[in-house]
């Protein structure tokens, strides 16, 4: 009887795990199928042209790809040092008493719904960014744009990166630190050793944050300005893949238009899968060591 239970349980959990894989494959397949019109019509130029004209039925996704990668990269640039600082403080320096509340508070950031971040972005962050842009003389000084999007993404990414980095640091064998101290290292030098040991895992934590930033939709849509502009300027309104999907999907009644949108979804799906797989690989490497 109990053996039956074992087998049944194994089968059930195995089936569920397999189901996840099937779902991922199914999503990939369905996205490809439903974007076939656009893939056939535009081919590779879909990824390299800048015009997005639903009226004329002319679609190029470059501004969205640019905006997605650029906003996520900027967000990482802001979030990584902060997240690492939090992780190091919590795992290495903070008094025991503070550890739990600090962990809880950073993780609370991840629990806030993105629409709330978006509203906060519109009413608090955007006016501040606008004032900053006016002071710095950046045009067009609207407040909404790449800069605001990157800032909001950074706040959203911090809890992810910092909690994984904290776990990584916790997993660094204490022998490493002890050895450093034994050699007469200062605390700072011992921390450096620990970070060095967990380097690839911390890279993984950063990439996980990147994956999170790539797919973020609502908060970004609300502050990025939604314009198909490709620019390095953080003051310029731009666009992301997730944002254009959220914006235009419901009203896209034309077949080709719909297929073009789904093709963007397909691309977003692929890069998210790749980035997440890479980050997981890096994290496993440290945990296995």
């Amino acid at each position, binding site marked *: 009887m109990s053996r039956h239970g074992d087998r049944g349980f194994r089968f059930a959990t195995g089936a569920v795990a397999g189901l996840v894989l099937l779902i991922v494959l199914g999503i990939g397949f369905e996205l490809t199928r439903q974007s076939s019109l656009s893939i056939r019509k535009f081919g590779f130029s879909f990824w390299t042209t800048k015009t997005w004209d639903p009226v004329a039925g002319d679609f190029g996704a470059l501004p969205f790809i640019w905006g997605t990668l650029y906003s996520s990269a900027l967000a990482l640039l802001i979030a990584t040092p902060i997240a690492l600082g939090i992780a190091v403080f919590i795992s290495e320096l903070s008094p025991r008493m503070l550890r739990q509340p600090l962990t809880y508070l950073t993780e609370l950031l991840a629990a806030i719904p993105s629409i709330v971040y978006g509203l906060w972005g519109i009413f608090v962050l*955007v006016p501040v960014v606008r004032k900053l842009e006016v002071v710095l003389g950046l045009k067009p000084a609207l407040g909404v744009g790449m800069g605001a999007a990157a800032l909001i993404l950074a706040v959203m990414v911090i809890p992810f990166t910092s909690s994984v980095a904290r776990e990584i640091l916790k997993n660094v064998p204490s022998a490493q630190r002890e050895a450093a101290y034994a050699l007469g290292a200062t605390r700072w030098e011992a921390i450096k050793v620990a970070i060095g040991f967990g380097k690839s895992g911390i890279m993984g934590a950063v990439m996980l944050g990147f994956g999170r930033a790539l797919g973020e939709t609502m908060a970004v*849509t609300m502050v990025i300005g939604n314009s198909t502009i490709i620019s390095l300027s953080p003051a310029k309104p731009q666009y992301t893949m997730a944002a254009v999907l959220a914006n235009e999907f*419901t009203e896209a009644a034309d077949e080709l238009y719909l297929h073009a949108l789904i093709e963007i979804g397909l691309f977003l799906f692929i890069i998210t899968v790749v980035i997440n797989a890479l980050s997981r690989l890096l994290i496993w490497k440290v945990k296995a060591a």
Partner: protein
Amino acid sequence: MKKCVLILAAILVACKPAETPKEPAGAAAQINGAGATFPNPIYSKWFDEYGKAHPGVRINYQPIGSGGGIKQLSAQTVFFGATDGPMTDEQLKAAPGPILHFPTVLGAVVPIYNIEGASQPLRFSGDVLAKIYLGRITKWNDAAIAALNPGVTLPATELAVVHRSDGSGTTYIWCDFLSKVSAEYKEKVGVATSVNWPAGVGAKGNEGVAGLVQQTPGAIGYVELIYALHNKIPFGSVQNKSGEFVTASLASVTAAAAGVAVPDDFHVSITNPDGKDAYPIASFTWMLLYQNPADKARARTMVDFLKWALSDGQTFAPDLGYAQLPKPVVEKELAALGKVAI
């Protein structure tokens, strides 16, 4: 495992009768519809009121957007659709059967702006609005704006153009008007629920556009009249075809519908209509029904409902901020309802 299956089976059996409740003779089961978000408040009110007066009739409406409504209706997953822009010929051809359009109420789109020191509501013309949205006019004190607003000191602030980022019937109506008054706008931008904007930033929803305009000095945007009225946002007047500057109101929107010859299929854009009192950026919103629905009981219920919505139902419109249909349109529609094969 076995137990689970049994429980599941029990639940399924228990659920079944609930899906097909006994109905009074003549009434249909639940009728599902989907489509435009703009008329959702009045449709909800109508279905609620009609359901109260006719027990057994349950009409369920999902405001998923006009595009979604057309898609769902074409796929026959809903019984009726609703849209802010008439279906295109291609869409009609792609549908499995002929589809009829029935205007239900009227909506309008108004320009809102944020400039300091404007003592009175600004006046706009279609030409000026088109040039602003094309990025041709970039400063508030441009001669073209000043010429429409004698006596108003306009600042030298740069215009910050705000448009909808999400696909929307509001954008459709706005672009429809601007395309009618400006050949350049028609050629470069065109008419659709989402367009390739030559200028400005996109904000999500009426609330996003209004929020951004109110925050940004020098901003101009467009929102639904209802949204502006409910939130007490001041808006500008727009010059109509007869040269009058008309402020949008329920009466001036109804006047717009009266200023257009409505064809038998009701596929008509009423932007830039004739009539001295007509507000030029207005539109019908439509319900969509198959001409030969397979389910006759549901079809009868829908036709009865529409008869009520076009007559008694219209009285609910003004309270919710919608303009009523003009009498001749209602009469024409009541006649057209006879086309539905029931």
